[in-house]
């Protein structure tokens, strides 16, 4: 047929190779129906970031592993509750992870546990090594360069809260700036981050 060329032209554009997770949404849908195989694939997709994020907040690898397990089981358990109108599937997962990590880091009991376990864990995993590992990963991440785009105060406000689990009054004390300023910098920092991360 003479028209095959035109038909080629109408082929859908293949998924962009820059998008590493084209099907997190369909995986999560399958998980919601009880598909354990899909859960395994979703696990592989999100766990390095789930675990890395929790470990970054908690610092203690043993406790991070425990919380990561809770979070991933929670993802399995509540997959049907994911509402695509409110955000992306990966953001849903990382929000659960971050929230759990922050809850844990702020609980006094856990603080005691952490001291004990961090002491034990530091034998084979010195904190500096963790920090180095994180720094190396960060180099390659878009998020890092976007963080560098923020003002110093925006960046510190955002990262002290997100990566270390501080409340905004704690951030205010750490940075010695007024509460109102911290609130504003967190908000406009996130807005700037958002505008940087959105692909052009």
């Amino acid at each position, binding site marked *: 047929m003479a028209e095959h060329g035109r038909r080629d032209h109408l082929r859908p554009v293949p998924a962009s190779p820059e998008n590493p997770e084209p099907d997190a949404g369909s995986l999560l849908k399958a998980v919601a129906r009880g598909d354990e195989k899909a859960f395994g694939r979703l696990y592989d997709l999100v*766990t390095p970031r789930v675990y890395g*994020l929790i470990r970054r907040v908690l610092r203690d690898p043993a406790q991070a*592993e425990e919380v990561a*397990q809770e979070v991933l089981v929670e993802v399995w*358990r509540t997959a049907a509750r994911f509402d695509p109108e409110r955000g992306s599937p990966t953001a849903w997962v990382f929000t659960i992870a971050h929230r759990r990590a922050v809850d*844990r880091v702020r*609980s006094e009991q856990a603080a005691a546990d952490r001291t004990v376990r961090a002491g034990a864990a530091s034998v084979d995993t010195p904190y500096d090594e963790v920090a180095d590992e994180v720094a190396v990963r960060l180099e390659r991440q878009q998020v890092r360069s976007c963080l560098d785009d923020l003002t110093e105060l925006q960046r510190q406000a955002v990262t002290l809260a997100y990566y270390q689990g501080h*409340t905004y009054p704690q951030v205010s004390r750490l940075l010695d700036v007024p509460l109102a300023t911290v609130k504003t910098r*967190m908000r406009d920092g*996130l807005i700037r981050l958002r505008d940087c991360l959105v692909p052009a």
Partner: protein
Amino acid sequence: MSVEIHALVGPYALDALDDVERAAFERHLRECEPCRLEADDLRETAARLADGAWSVPPPGLRDNVLAAIGNTRQVSAPATRSARPVRRMWVAAAAAVVVAAGAAGAGAWTIQDQRVRTAQATAAQEARVRTILTAPDVVLREETLDSGGRVTVASSRLQDAGVIMLSADGAPAAGRVYQTWTIRAGTPSSAGALGEGQSAAVQVIDGLPEANQVGVTVEAAPGATTPSAPLDALVELT
């Protein structure tokens, strides 16, 4: 006031609010659709920060998680598609409807929105709620109130306790109050009544895993000794 509370949207998206302010802010979001959209948007951005924290997971984690899900029952999708699209996406967030304790008399609990806002929750009660909500075996169940709103029940056998979190869209008519009940083998007993004009509360219930159901009714103030039909919500625990 609304402007003032909305200034918390940045800290909210970063999980940088304490439980009390988070509860107040989430109430604000339920009343303000554009605010909720902004909050969702900034949360989406904040979650991208997880990209910067990539780390190799421990080798045993995968097997442990896959074994654990084999024993974990999934919740079904929320049955009713409410006209109000506000739905808690994450269970941890359900955990945060917080936490003020009624110091008002034995077994009684009265909690006011304002009190949550003014942060009169005690640290001890907050810690107790948190312990239950983060128990490894915690089970959360949620029902909508016929009168509008939600009741969420968290129950942990390990803690032998549970938490009832009531979040109504508004207070009942004048002279009427919300009251909650635990029902064991068909016999209801009052878990407490809210005060007039109150629409949100959190209560720790010792021994909750022994109950079969949790009920919510609207009663004449200051509360009834037996629940009057119809129930505003019934949460099945077993």
